[in-house]
């Protein structure tokens, strides 16, 4: 049987070649499937590796790599992408000009100035919507305009006035080189808070506030690095000794987007004479912060505008 196989595969050449030592064992006995107990398993898998006597010549045989559709497609990806970009550029200016397009990130990247904040804008960002009347904090009474559909409506004039005041304070503190901390723990606050911190050259916090960061700053923030800067925010050498012995920094102003989830932070600020600004909803306590902004804390469009 084995000799026949050799002939089929390699014809005359194999027969004329001297039989090598490795073929000796293949000539002596035929192999069968292993043991009666494994028969059923072998039948299931339909394998006959046991029966095959692989010749060394066939072992080294490697079929040439076929150029399949998949490999062909991958090779032209870069070319097709460049072409599509080129077409996009060429055709972008064709067709009608849409004047007032809405981009969701617009209020993030280009937030309105305090003078551009109108009551219509505040209403459009749903800042007048308070919570259910049964969940209100009576200290907010002065900010509420009325009730509609079971919720309190915050007076937009009050919101605008407080927002403008808060903006002025942020501007003043930033002008004097104070350190402003923007805090927003909810999932949608990350971008607003980081961009606001970038614009004000302050700090951001979009994860949980670690309790004791101000009162126990030496332990918690001791390893975070600080530097000495001058009037124009350029780094000044020569303060290395001071930097080494300095334990931690405290913010000069804290702007919080969700005070209800940040009581510990606001309490610590109160203990350390750090003024705070926060968006106070109808169920929040306005005495928690120095400068409340009565508005809806559940809408992210508003938070972008506030920042």
């Amino acid at each position: 049987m084995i000799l026949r196989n050799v002939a089929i595969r390699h014809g005359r050449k194999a027969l004329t070649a001297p039989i090598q030592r490795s073929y000796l064992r293949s000539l002596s006995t035929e192999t069968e499937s292993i043991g009666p107990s494994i028969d059923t398993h072998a039948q299931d898998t339909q394998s006959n590796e046991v029966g095959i006597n692989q010749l060394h010549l066939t072992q080294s045989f490697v079929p040439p790599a076929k150029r399949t559709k998949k490999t062909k497609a991958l090779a032209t990806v870069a070319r097709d992408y460049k072409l599509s970009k080129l077409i996009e550029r060429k055709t972008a200016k064709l067709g009608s000009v849409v004047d007032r397009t809405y981009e969701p990130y617009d209020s993030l990247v280009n937030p309105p100035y305090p003078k551009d904040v109108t009551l219509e804008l505040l209403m459009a960002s749903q800042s007048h919507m308070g919570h259910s009347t049964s969940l209100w904090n009576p200290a907010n009474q002065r900010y509420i305009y009325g009730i509609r559909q079971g919720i309190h409506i915050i007076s937009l004039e009050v919101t605008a006035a407080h927002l403008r005041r808060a903006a002025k304070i942020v501007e003043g503190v930033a002008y004097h080189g104070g350190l402003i901390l923007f805090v927003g723990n909810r999932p949608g606050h990350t971008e607003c808070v980081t961009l606001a911190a970038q614009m004000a050259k302050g700090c951001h916090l979009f994860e949980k506030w670690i309790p004791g960061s101000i009162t126990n700053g030496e332990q918690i923030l001791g390893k975070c690095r600080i530097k000495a800067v001058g009037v124009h925010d350029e780094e000044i050498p020569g303060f290395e000794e001071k930097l080494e012995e300095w334990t931690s920094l405290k913010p000069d102003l804290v702007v919080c987007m969700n005070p209800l989830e940040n009581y510990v932070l606001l309490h610590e600020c109160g203990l350390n004479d750090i003024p705070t600004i926060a968006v106070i909803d109808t169920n929040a306590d306005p005495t928690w912060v120095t400068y409340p902004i009565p508005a809806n804390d559940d809408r992210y469009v508003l938070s972008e505008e506030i920042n």
Partner: protein
Amino acid sequence: MKAAWLPHHLRGSLRCSRPTRAFIAKPLKQRILLNASTKTFSTSSTSSAGIAAPEIKFPGSESRGGEGDYGDTIFYARLVPESPSYFTSQPTFTDDLLSLQTILRKYAALPVVKPGDAPRVAWQPLMTYRQAAGEAVKSAKYQKIIAILQRLNQIHHSVMPRAVKQALEKFKRDINPFVNAARPIKVDQFGRALGAGRRKTSTARAWVVEGTGEVLVNGKTLADTFGRIHDRESAVWALKATERLDKYNVWALVQGGGTTGQAEALTLAVAKALLAHEPALKPALRRGEPDTMHTYLNTLFNSSEGKKVLLLTHFLAGCITRDPRKVERKKPGHRKARKMPAWVKR
């Protein structure tokens, strides 16, 4: 910063900064504090019952006459954090995460391959990152970074920008474990193949060469080495199962452990060496069960119970898999690995 430099609308808001923070050349001169403005705003409130700090006390809007007093006040320097993520207490990690998110947002529209087709990369393990950053970053948080890296890695290599490549390089592991390939066992010039095997604490080295079926273990024959027939069979099970006992010679060195351990170690060693001669036997050797199977079947057919038809769907590995079992350690509170002292009610 002189008061004269300030714009008008901010002059009233000059605040005595805490001396600990700002380094002032000369101390502030005594000023006569003018009365604060008596204007009332719609935003002013007098409630001070809460936890909030008091409002910023401005010196008064009519303090513009005191310009000269502020002329000597110059701020040399102020202390600021190096990173805007200072108050997160993990600034390095937060900055890394933010920068990766920015990069992803920028290059989100580039063509992407399927997750399985992306090049396989070993990312920095958490411990290494912790040491590099010097912060105790939680695993769940680090996985966020890994998720972004994997998404960036899917960008097609022909259009991947340099910034992305640099960002990925920073988080790649020093070594690439996927490049490591196992060294195959070769048959040398004399026709010998060396296979090594281990079981419990025994190690065996077996040289398998084509021959007539002689087996020597530590210079002795199989019968001399192993008193148990079972051990003798399992030592050369790889050859026995494939019916090649008369085709190969085995010369083995075994040390460590006891008789059965040495015999099982030999099983693996001989199997590996045999595969060097005949690689096609691998599935056959894998399915063959040296120990559990034939002892189980013996008990089954020899038992006094009636014939049972069993469908054996699960097969343990045969001669190819290294048996990982070892002696379990003794634990405190137990007499041995599992045995516990007798339970006493009181």
